[in-house]
């Protein structure tokens, strides 16, 4: 049974891998699964594919872009200085550590943070004359 593009109505054969790149005509990423005998119902009954979707109770499929694997880069954009991946396993953000004394620790994957308030209450570091 085929898929139809919800925007322009272009038909795609069942199991077509073409739709994974989005609709070849309009670039739309949403497709409705329609029964063979109802393939032209939208045109005949002058209904949008959204309406057909509601009536046929089929789910509109959406092509989702695969997530980019940029874990390393992301790490240094994060706010925390120390990330606890699991007990005994840590990721350290050296650049953040070099900038300030604030300890922001994130725990696990849920993004809960621990902020060391004591380390933030200290005075600004004294300005020292630097030797050449």
């Amino acid at each position, binding site marked *: 049974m085929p898929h139809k593009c919800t925007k322009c109505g272009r038909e795609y054969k069942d199991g077509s891998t073409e739709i994974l790149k989005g609709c070849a005509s309009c670039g739309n990423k949403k497709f409705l699964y329609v029964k063979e005998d109802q393939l032209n119902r939208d045109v005949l009954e002058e209904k949008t594919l959204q309406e057909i979707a509601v009536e046929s109770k089929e789910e509109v499929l959406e092509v989702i872009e695969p997530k980019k694997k940029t874990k390393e880069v992301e790490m240094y954009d994060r706010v925390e200085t120390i990330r606890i991946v699991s007990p005994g396993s840590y990721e350290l953000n*050296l650049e953040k550590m070099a900038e300030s004394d604030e300890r922001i620790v994130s725990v696990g994957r849920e993004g809960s943070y621990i902020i060391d308030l004591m380390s933030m209450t200290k005075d600004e570091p004294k300005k020292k004359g*630097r030797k050449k």
Partner: protein
Amino acid sequence: MGKMKKKFSGFVARFFKKKRTRIGIYGPPNAGKTTLANRIARDWTGDALGPVSEIPHETRRARKKEDIIISGANGSTVTIDIVDTPGVTTKVDYHEFLEFGMEKDEAIIRAREATEGVAEAMHWLREDINGVIYMLDSSLDPFMQVNIMMIGIIEARNLPVIIVANKIDLPDAAPGRIRSAFPQHPVVAISGLDGRNVEDLYETMLEYFG
């Protein structure tokens, strides 16, 4: 007589130097930072700084030795404090320590302390360090993210830096790789373990930290 002279020049130096130079020994874990710190301390004060081990992150607290007076061949001296810092890395995982036969509980504690140690090392770099000896194991690839990043951070702070290509006693040591990786900084190839070439390092320290 030589000893007297050393003592006297130190005495003079203490009066005339406005400020001591505080040198931090930085680098990734297991580069030989403590071995070098111990050698410097032993050579010039007869003392040591801390224990060394083949298991990474043996040094988890920064250790400091003050008033080390280094004198060169031409009689010039420099008074420095040496700060031996914990190995700096972007990832600490206790599994690494298990391979050395450590118990899990002990390894997890070591990982936590090592993490705190990195934070402490970075704290020192921000506030109390006037110059850096950046240590690398010359048998390993110098183009590691942590090295590039640390050298960048040190440069951003305008700190004088000497790069030490350590472990030249190892058969696969290639200090040339380190030289070509960081051509903008002086690189001294030594063996902290057997003391090969450390005299060169002392001369370079006089030149850059004096």
